[in-house]
Each structure stands twice: as C-alpha cells, then as structure tokens.
C-alpha cells in the first residue's frame, strides 16, 4: 500500500505540517498520525462525503458554468495557541488603527495635516467617498467587520497581505467547514482542543445591535443582500438565519422622511441597523450609481440624520485601498503609539520617479497589484508571467503609477492537500475575521484558510480555482474552552447517575407480545 505522504516534497516555502521530511511540527503530530496510514481509497471516500455534504446543502459556486461544491480540503490547518495569540493581537491592533484612521479622515483630518499620509493619496482613492463626511456612527464604529488577509513567509512569520474593511466575505465557509470537518473526522477532532467558531453570528449581532442609532433600545437589524444571484448569497442567508434577523433585498426597503422601513405582510416596519453586503457604489442610487436597482434610495441621508446605521459604514474603502495599506504601520504608530505586531509584506509605492523606474525594470521579479482590485483581480506575479504580459503590464503601470503597488513575492506557506490520490503541498493564506462592537475588537479564533489548488499557484481566490481548509486554533493548555467551563460550572461531570434517575420519570412501553402468540401460530 502506497503511503499517502510518500511523494510529499518540501520546497523552500514554510510548510505548515512538516519541519523536515517525515517530521511533523508539534501542533500537527496527531493529525499526521491519524492521516499517515490512511488508505487513499478511504481518503477519497471521505473527500466525496465532504463534496456531497456541500452539494446537498447548496453550498456551491459556479465554475465555468457548472455547479461545483465549495472545495474543502480534508486536512485541517492547525494553529498553536501561542501563534494565534500573536495573530489575535496583531489583527485587533490593525482594526483599531483602521478605525481611528477612518474617523480622522472623515472628520478632522489631522493625519493629513501632520503629513503622515499625503492628502492626495487619500483623496484620490476610489474607496474614499466625500458623501461619508459628516456621517457620525452612533458608537463610533465604521468597520463592524474586517477581514485581514495574512500570509506566512519562508521564516514562518505571519505578515499582512491586505486589509478588507468594506464587505469582507467568507465567514460562512469557516462555520460550514468546521461543521463538516468535525463530522468527517469526529475522532481526530475530539482529540484536539479546538476553539469553537460557531458563536460568530451571536458576536456579530451583538456588535450590530450596539451600533444602533441613539435612542433606539431594541433595534431591528437586517442583512441587506444583492439577491440570490450573488456569489455570496449563501453567506448572507446563513448569517441572517443564525442571527435570527430578516434577510432583505433593496426592493424590500423603502426610505422616506429619513427613515428606513421594510415592506412586510403586516405593513411597513422600521429598520434601525442595516448590515449591508452591497458595495458602496450600489448602496444608494441618490448618491452613487444612479442605475443601481439593488440599493435603497435615500438610505445615506437617513444614516446622516442618525436614523439608521449602515454597517460597514460608507467610505471604509478609504482604509483598505492597497496604497493606503502601505501606510497602515504608520497609522498604528500615529494613532495608537504602538509598534505593529504584524508586519506588512515588503511593498513599494510608485510615487517616486526613481523607484518607479526601478520597479518597471524589475517587473519580472515583483508582484504588481492594482490598488483597488479585489479577489485577486488584475494581479501579475512577475516570476510566473510570460513576456507579453510583462510588456503590457509595463505600459499600464507607467501610464498610471497611482493605480499600482509593487510587492516582493512571498512564497506562501504550504500545507498538505489531498490531490487525486495522495497529499501534496499547496500554498495557503489565512483570513481572520474581526468584529468591532465599539467596546472591544473580537477576532474569530480560526478564520478562513484558502488554498491555491493548482500546483505552484499563489492566488487563492475561489473564483480562480481556490479551495479552503478548516482552521483549528488550539486552546491554550492553561485556558478552558467556554464549553468546558460551562460543564465544570454545572458540575455535570460529577453528576452521579442516581441523581439523574431521581430527576426523571419512568419510561412507558406498549403491550408486549401476546401470551397467546404461540397458539396463534398453530
């Protein structure tokens, strides 16, 4: 029998599971032991079960016009407690800095006056909206939900690849991945003390309620979706369902007198907090694209009047522009007076003519990204690009240096991924999700690990053939998981059966076989 790890080769990239060929890292010892001796057929069987679970649940996406299950790899990504602690601190710090920056930019603009960021960089960003000026969020939060994309470099250090402060998506896959992985490898899952992810919807709802307009004590929260044709519709429905709030489309809302209402079978009902999963450009045709039919005309004025809260706030794109990204470490020092816990990837701005010239000459060794692209769109990875692409890129970048940044290529860390009949290394990243309730930034322990499925590929987006992995954050040995704490508090473990028996009534059963059964057979 061929061992499923036989052909696993390590490259110069950091490998999540192995520190040397055949030697797993400590956090992975049990996972490796469980997988090592699996028969490829068995692995394939489980992979099919996983695909089936996603297909039946309708967790699919269109790939080349065909309905495919969301690809979840069987091998979980394991993050040790100490590693997670650094990520947790780093992400929280980053979100606080982005929040402070947005409050400043749409308010006093002291960071521009102090010359930390050039005014032109902020004002020319496509995510900066003048319409957002003067909208003061009730509890000071604009970035209610953030997704900070991290990668791991060759030394195993986590670095921030980009920030998502507008409408980060993917958290539903974190929840679904966990549900399905835990069922596929119940024994393996039980051996680890994995921190739970299923309280995300409750945290989100609490943060949204905390953001309600002033004077509203029992706010009505809704999730605003573009509609069933949207690729993230599954996520919108899942969050609405698990938060127990209405999932609305633009046509369900009406706005008059600066109040937003939804049309229900019992007439129009007020809405106080809109967790929108629609981009700024489509949100309000009165202010942004007039041809938008999925938004709610007038909602922005209602927000300005303090009658409704839009989450995430309008104009958060000013903070997650990729050019702004290069300044975030400065934000952290300026607003928080701290040193960044997580570093950026080495990035070059193209504002300086000399640097621009150097970048244009070194395109083949660099990664070039458009500053307002999302989902891996428009990225050119120099070392993997052909000559024609580079020539075209050179002309595009030279014509619009403001529209691009250059980065040193990062050899994303690799993780064993099931490919046809064995495990092979594939590059992965990590998107932790942070929820800001105003009092506190909470980071979901885990986040979305995305996998670039084609061999050697570095772009992990699912629209470009990416998959995902369940992400297990191990609990600190000294810390109790909430469910363990609850069990201990109730003393359930020590409950003797006799006490239980006293607390329940007797069971009843129906009449047994007739005594005459034997005679009946005569």
């Amino acid at each position, binding site marked *: 029998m061929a061992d499923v790890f036989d052909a696993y080769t390590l490259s110069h990239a950091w490998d999540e599971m192995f520190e040397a060929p055949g030697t797993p890292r400590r956090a992975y010892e049990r996972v490796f032991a469980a997988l090592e001796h699996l028969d490829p057929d068995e692995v394939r069987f489980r992979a099919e079960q996983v695909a089936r679970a996603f297909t039946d*649940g*309708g967790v699919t996406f269109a790939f080349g016009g065909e309905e495919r299950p969301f690809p979840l790899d069987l091998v979980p990504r394991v993050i040790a407690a100490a590693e997670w602690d650094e990520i947790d601190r780093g992400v929280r710090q980053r979100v606080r800095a982005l929040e402070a920056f947005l409050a400043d930019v749409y308010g006093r603009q002291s960071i521009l006056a102090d010359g930390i960021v050039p005014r032109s960089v902020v004002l020319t960003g496509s995510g900066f909206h003048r319409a957002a000026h003067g909208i003061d969020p009730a509890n000071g939060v604009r970035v209610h939900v953030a997704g900070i994309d991290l990668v791991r470099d060759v030394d195993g250090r986590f670095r921030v690849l980009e920030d998502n402060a507008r409408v980060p998506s993917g958290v539903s896959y974190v929840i679904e991945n966990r549900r399905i992985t835990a069922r596929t490898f119940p024994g393996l899952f039980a051996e680890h003390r994995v921190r739970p992810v299923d309280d995300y919807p409750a945290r989100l709802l609490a943060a949204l309620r905390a953001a309600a307009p002033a004077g509203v004590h029992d706010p009505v929260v809704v999730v605003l979706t573009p509609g069933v044709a949207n690729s993230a519709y599954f996520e919108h429905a899942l969050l609405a369902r698990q938060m127990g709030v209405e999932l609305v489309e633009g*046509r369900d809302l009406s706005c008059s007198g600066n109040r937003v209402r939804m049309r*229900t079978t019992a*007439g*129009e009902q007020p809405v106080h907090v809109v967790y929108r999963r629609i981009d700024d450009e489509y949100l309000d045709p009165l202010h942004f694209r007039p*041809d938008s*039919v999925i938004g709610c005309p007038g909602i922005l004025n209602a927000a300005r009047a303090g009658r409704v809260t839009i989450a995430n706030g309008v104009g958060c794109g000013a903070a997650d522009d990729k050019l702004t990204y290069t300044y975030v470490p400065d934000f952290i020092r300026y607003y928080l007076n701290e040193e960044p816990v997580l570093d950026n990837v080495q990035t070059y701005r193209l504002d300086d003519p000399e640097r621009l010239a150097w970048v244009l000459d070194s395109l083949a060794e660099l990664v070039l990204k458009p500053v307002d692209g999302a989902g891996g769109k428009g990225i050119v990875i120099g070392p993997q690009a052909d000559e024609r692409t580079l020539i075209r890129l050179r002309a595009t970048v030279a014509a619009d240096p403001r529209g691009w940044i250059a980065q040193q290529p990062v050899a994303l860390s690799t993780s064993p991924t099931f490919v046809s009949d064995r495990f092979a290394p594939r590059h992965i990243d990590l998107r932790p999700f942070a929820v800001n309730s105003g009092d506190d930034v909470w980071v979901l322990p885990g986040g979305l690990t995305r996998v670039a499925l084609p061999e050697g590929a570095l772009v992990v987006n699912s629209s470009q053939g990416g998959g995902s992995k369940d992400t297990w954050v191990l609990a600190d040995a000294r810390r109790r998981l909430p469910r363990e704490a609850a069990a201990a508090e109730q003393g359930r473990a020590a409950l003797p059966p006799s006490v239980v028996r006293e607390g329940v009534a007797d069971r009843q059963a129906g009449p047994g076989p007739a005594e005459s059964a034997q005679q009946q057979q005569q």
Partner: protein
Amino acid sequence: MLSRIAESLFWLGRYVERADDTARVLDAFMHRLLDDPGTDEEAACRTLFAVLGVAVPATESGVCDAQTVLDVLAFDAREASSVVGAWQAAHDNARGVREVISTESWECLNATRLALPAQRRAAGRLGPYAYLRYVRERAALFSGLADSTMSRDDSWLFLTLGRSLERVDMTARLLSVKVLASPYAPDWVTLLRAAGADEPYRITESWGGDPQSAARFLVLDPGFPRSIVHALATAERCLADVADATTGRSSQGRVPRRSRGQALAPSATRIVGRMRTVLEYLDADTLVERLPTVLKELQEACLAASRQIADQYFQYGTPVVWLQGKDS
C-alpha cells in the same frame, strides 16, 4: 414577515404540491393507458394536456402519445406545470427564503433537484413509475420536515396556504380528467389510488364501486386530508390566522392600509370560505351531475383567491429606475 418572503413561501408550498400531484395524475393516467390497450391514446393524451392547462407541444409527426405526455409533463424543466419544472420552481423560491425555512427542508429540496436527472435516466430503463414515485416520496419528505422543523408562525402559514390552494386546484383537475373525458380516463379505483385515497375511502364509505361515492369522497370528505373540502378548510384557517397575526402585530406600529374601514372579511377568505360552504351544502346525491360546474368553479376560485392574496400581502416595490436625460 417580508412580503417578498411570504410570496416565495406561498409559491414554494404550491410548487411542491404541484410536483407531487402532477406525479400522481401522471401515474394514474399511464396506468390507464397500459391497462386498456383499446383506449384512443391520442385523444386521451390531448385531454390530459387540456385539463392540466398545458399547450400540446408541436412535434414533427403531429403525434401526441404517452411519450409526449411524459416528455413534457414529467421531464420538461422549462414547463412550470411539469413535475421537474415545478420542483425546480419550488427550489428557486426556496433559495430566496433560505433563512426562514429549516436547513433540513432546504437540503431535501436541493438534493432532490440534483438527483432528478439521474432518476430520469433510470426512468428511461425502468419506466416512469419509479421516477414518479421518487418525486412523491421526496414531496412527502419535504412536507414532513417542514411539519416537524418549522415554527407555526407566518412563514408556516403562507407555506401551508399555498400547499392547500394548490391541492384544491389539482384535486379538481384530477377529477376533471374523469368527468370531462370519461372514456379515456382511469377508472375510479385508479383515481382514488392516485390521490392516496383508496384505502381511507374503503374504510369510510362502504365499497360499492359507485362513482357517486368515490367523487363524494374526494370532494366532500371532511376527514381526508387530500379531499377538496379539507384543503379548503385548511386554507381558510391559514388565511384567518395570517389576518390575525398581521393586524395583531401592527397595533404597536403603523396601521396598515388594508385594515382601515374594514368591516368585511378580507376577500381571499371570502372566496375560499364561500367555496367550502357551497360544497358543504351541496346535495351529495346529485354531486356527479353538477361536478363539471363545481370543478370549474373551484379552479376559478383558486385563481381568484391567489390573486387576492397577492394583492393583499405581496405588495412590494419594483426596483426604482432613475430616468436620466431630457425626457425625465
């Protein structure tokens, strides 16, 4: 609840029931064609199309036979009154209400939709019965799951309302096949079996093969859940509960438009209640003679009630389109 959601649930209920009932009608009909080779197949098939309100497809040969019936009424996904088309439509409606129906009900709908192509291929080998049976079973599974996993709130009421109205309509059409085209129609036993009613019928009515009693059972039996009177009563109850729920809740918010000066019961309730009363006071002995009129009235009442429900509860905006340029 949102008007858009209410509408989707109403149609979800209708389409699942339609898939189920169409499968039942086809089953009975195919049985008849096989059973009696002397039947004029062409005429029988055309009758069935007419009763189900589906246009006879124009084929090259101009022939309309059992295969045409199956191709269109069972397997044509573009036809909303076919088995697969109704299921697809149910699924599409369910997609828009994922957050209000239970995950289990949704998975049942979705898994069935995905399994239908394979079932159809199997039907090519084994005949249509397995396919029709599969759809009936999955519809039963959906109803059972909805029954046991959905709260009895507005969403449940709209789902059940849609199902009941569709059941009235489809049972009426099932009977129309027999009443309007008796020579081509399945016999009463087959019809009863198609409605799942043959055994309850034998228990309730003493068996005599009497057409009066079979029709009476399917139309008037108050205890059998697929009978027309029972389905009407269920729909009536749902409408009353919906009215209570929606006006009751609005007392703390704005007064909705429809309750102003409303001394009369809402009109959908009136239509459904009137139909039920007409049936209940019908002279049971002359039912069969009056059946053609009654069945037509029933189908029209379903149409009218459905329109009234839409007017009353499913009012929501069409997207606002901003005119740009000189003309605006």
